[in-house]
């Protein structure tokens, strides 16, 4: 085409040379102005053109072979040989290398200075669980890795035990441990499940652990350790806290956030079933409403169900809130019993519903009788009930094993369930602890009620209900139940559940029966309120009767059943003693009964080796059950008959006992069919 303009080669050239010179001057390293690659050592003295314009040999070759062969700067053709090329001598090479090394060193030192402030920084690790309060028995890497301990929550990368007891506090010598999981969720799972759990006489405290920066990293050097657990790269800003911040608890806030996020994600997944449960729970209300008494104390007795309804809407509170609300509720006896009672209820539901109805009756009666008692006192009675209910558990070991996971879901249970722990975990330490924990919480009374509702619900649902109880209880018991709550609850109790009617009828029947009975004054039972209520624990009464070591061992046995099977006889014995007092058996018979029970238990164990767990606590119950079995082969009408015969006399005095007898009878049914 036609073209007009010819414009200055010269101008362009001049500018270009200047600017490119600047470009290459930016870095300390000399770069080829064309390809911007740093010049190699050999290129440093390479000047292909007489004008002195320096390019790398790669570009030089390219221009000469593929391009126009002109020097980019002066546009002269490159001569065949480079205008100036003095290969480096060995000395020069050494010098350059040394310089480079020094520069490297300087750079690292600079980095080290920049990292100095990190020495005081701790970074919360989302996959690291820090546990405090481990007994010496547990303070072992391999033990903690086991599936029944921290191994159950997920794959563990590493466990580090700190034998120093500096964190032990008042709990006696206890170690701490860092458990590193491969997954973040597993760590949160472990924390929610383990935190505040009571084991070996100590309360475990679990939280996300923090890590400091590796000293090698701070110095800017390579860490020689392969498996160094300290940080070698900058941690997330949000998870980094200085010591001062940690003293203020900032890192705990961070952890709390993580846990809440985690729980929310879990909850949303479970929201559907929870809704169903809420309707179920309402069925509980009728039983209690039936009660004629309108006295204030009566209202208090309702509180648990009320709490349930309110609790549904609430997010699950942090475990600590629930637990701390009930500091005094640490009873070994209740532990097993509550767990077993739950298992019973759930297990029996499909087979025979009558026992469960009995339970509801028992509940109602207990609540009824309470009105005169202060609210606090009502709890022990309920716990007692739960223990009594546990009887069937021993008699039906297989079911126990199956149902345990669910029953153990109290307090933590909901969370654990959400976390997807296996049923197989029921034998493990923490699950049993959970049951224990549940016992500590006032849940026992609530549980039976809820259980009734859950009987018809698929297995997965009861778990959710437990969560709700917990949430409800954590708040409800500590707070005064408001009348408004009560109203809501009443509103809710339009019969949704077919069970409602039957349970109501049973409750009425039961009440009639109990009222018709003539209360014989029995010393053991009259005594019960006195020793139980102050402690809010039925098992405390055990403590009175038994030497402390037995008591503790029993606790150990319950909690560590897989490890300490030898403790069972003792625990059984204690339970037996306790129950006998309650059930009004003669002291003479006690020894015989004990042995009978032992034999029976041994037999059961031999038959069902898998069912170690809660044998200890419920054994008294088994004894009674077996006794009943002998006397009555036909169990269909079991609950009412046994109730009258054995326990009618003292029932009026203590609602808890009454219910226990009732429930035990009712629960007993399945085992009797098996073994009688």
């Amino acid at each position, binding site marked *: *085409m*036609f*073209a*007009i*303009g*010819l*414009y*200055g*080669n010269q*101008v*362009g*050239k001049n*500018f*270009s*040379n200047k*600017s*490119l010179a*600047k*470009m290459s001057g*930016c870095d300390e390293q000399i770069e080829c*102005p*064309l*390809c*911007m*690659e740093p010049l190699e050592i050999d290129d440093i003295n390479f000047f292909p053109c007489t004008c002195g*314009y320096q390019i790398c040999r790669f*570009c030089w070759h*390219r*221009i000469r072979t*593929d*391009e126009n062969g*002109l020097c*980019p*700067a002066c*546009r002269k053709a490159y001569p065949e040989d480079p205008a100036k090329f003095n290969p480096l001598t060995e000395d020069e090479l050494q010098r350059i290398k040394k310089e480079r090394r020094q520069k490297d060193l300087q750079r690292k030192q600079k980095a080290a200075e920049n990292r100095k402030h990190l020495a005081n920084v701790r970074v919360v690790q989302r996959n690291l669980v820090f546990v405090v309060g481990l007994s010496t028995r547990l303070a072992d890497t391999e033990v903690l890795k086991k599936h029944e301990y921290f191994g159950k929550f997920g794959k563990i990368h590493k466990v580090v035990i700190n034998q120093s007891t500096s964190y032990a506090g008042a709990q006696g010598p206890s170690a701490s441990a860092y458990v590193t999981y491969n997954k973040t969720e597993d760590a949160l799972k472990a924390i929610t499940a383990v935190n505040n759990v009571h084991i070996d006489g100590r309360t475990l405290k679990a939280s996300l652990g923090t890590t400091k920066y590796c000293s090698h990293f701070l110095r800017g050097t390579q860490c020689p350790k392969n498996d160094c657990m300290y940080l070698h790269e900058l941690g997330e800003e949000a998870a980094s806290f200085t010591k001062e911040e940690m003293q203020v608890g900032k890192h705990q806030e961070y952890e709390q956030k993580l846990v809440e996020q985690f729980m929310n994600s879990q909850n949303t997944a479970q929201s559907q079933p929870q809704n169903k449960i809420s309707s179920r729970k309402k069925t509980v209300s009728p039983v209690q409403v039936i009660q004629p008494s309108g006295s204030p104390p009566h209202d208090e007795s309702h509180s648990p169900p009320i709490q349930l309804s309110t609790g549904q809407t609430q997010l699950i509170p942090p475990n600590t809130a629930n637990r701390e609300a009930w500091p005094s509720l640490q009873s070994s006896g209740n532990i097993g019993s509550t767990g077993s009672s739950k298992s019973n209820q759930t297990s029996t539901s499909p087979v025979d519903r009558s026992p469960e109805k009995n339970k509801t009756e028992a509940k109602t009666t207990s609540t009824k009788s309470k009105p005169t008692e202060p609210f606090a006192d009502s709890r022990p009675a309920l716990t007692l009930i739960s223990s009594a209910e546990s009887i069937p558990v021993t008699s039906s070991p297989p079911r126990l094993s199956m149902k345990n996971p669910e029953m153990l879901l109290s307090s933590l249970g909901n969370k654990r369930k959400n976390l997807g722990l296996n049923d197989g975990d029921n034998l493990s330490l923490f699950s049993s602890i959970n049951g224990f924990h549940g016992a500590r919480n006032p849940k026992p009374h609530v549980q039976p009620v809820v259980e009734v509702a859950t009987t018809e619900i698929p297995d997965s649902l009861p778990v959710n209900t437990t969560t709700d109880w917990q949430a409800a209880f954590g708040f409800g018991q500590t707070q005064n139940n408001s009348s408004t709550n009560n109203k809501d609850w009443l509103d809710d109790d339009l019969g949704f559940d077919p069970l409602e009617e039957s349970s109501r009828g049973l409750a009425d029947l039961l009440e009639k029966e109990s009222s018709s009975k003539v209360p014989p004054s029995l010393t053991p039972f009259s005594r019960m309120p006195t020793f139980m209520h102050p402690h809010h624990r039925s098992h405390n009464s055990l403590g009175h009767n038994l030497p402390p070591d037995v008591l503790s061992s029993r606790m150990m046995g319950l909690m560590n059943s897989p490890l300490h099977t030898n403790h069972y006889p003792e625990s059984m014995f204690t339970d037996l003693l306790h129950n006998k007092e309650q059930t009004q058996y003669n002291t003479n018979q006690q020894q015989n009964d004990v042995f009978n029970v032992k034999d029976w238990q041994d037999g059961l164990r031999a038959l069902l080796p898998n069912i170690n767990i809660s044998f200890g606590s419920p054994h008294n119950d088994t004894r009674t059950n077996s006794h009943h079995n002998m006397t009555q082969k036909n169990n269909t009408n079991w609950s009412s008959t046994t109730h009258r015969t054995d326990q009618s006399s003292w029932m009026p005095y203590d609602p808890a006992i009454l219910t226990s007898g009732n429930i035990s009878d009712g629960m007993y049914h399945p085992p009797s069919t098996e073994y009688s």
Partner: protein
Amino acid sequence: MTSMEKRLHKELQLLQKEPPHGVKIDVESIHRNLTEWIVDLEGAQESLYRGEKFQLLFKFGDRYPFDSPQVMFIGNNIPVHPHVYSNGHICLSILTDDWSPALSVTSVCLSIVSMLSSCTEKKRPPDNALYVKTCSKNPKKTRWFYHDDEV
């Protein structure tokens, strides 16, 4: 990163850091596509184009810097200049035959500003109408005859 990208990054860095007077890089356009730059030019103070603003489009090929980029005016304001066609094509030797890998975006911009500044009369090239009708979109495809050494 290819040597072309590396070189462009380097040039961009420098252009942002020390932009020549009257030259401003539209960084956003480059973030979208490293191989097409839009550069804002301002007419020099002592020139006929004082106060005028122009836009240059650079398109870099894979062989940059050994091959010259496409450079043309774009936008509403194409400078009226004897070497600039109304479609934005520029008749400038360093953009084709006289390109040197030692040249850069900055140097090209300065060359163009300098070319504008040296203009004494604002007019289109004499063959503007014909060229605009027949030329390729790519100014590099034009075989230029640089017979005007004066401007």
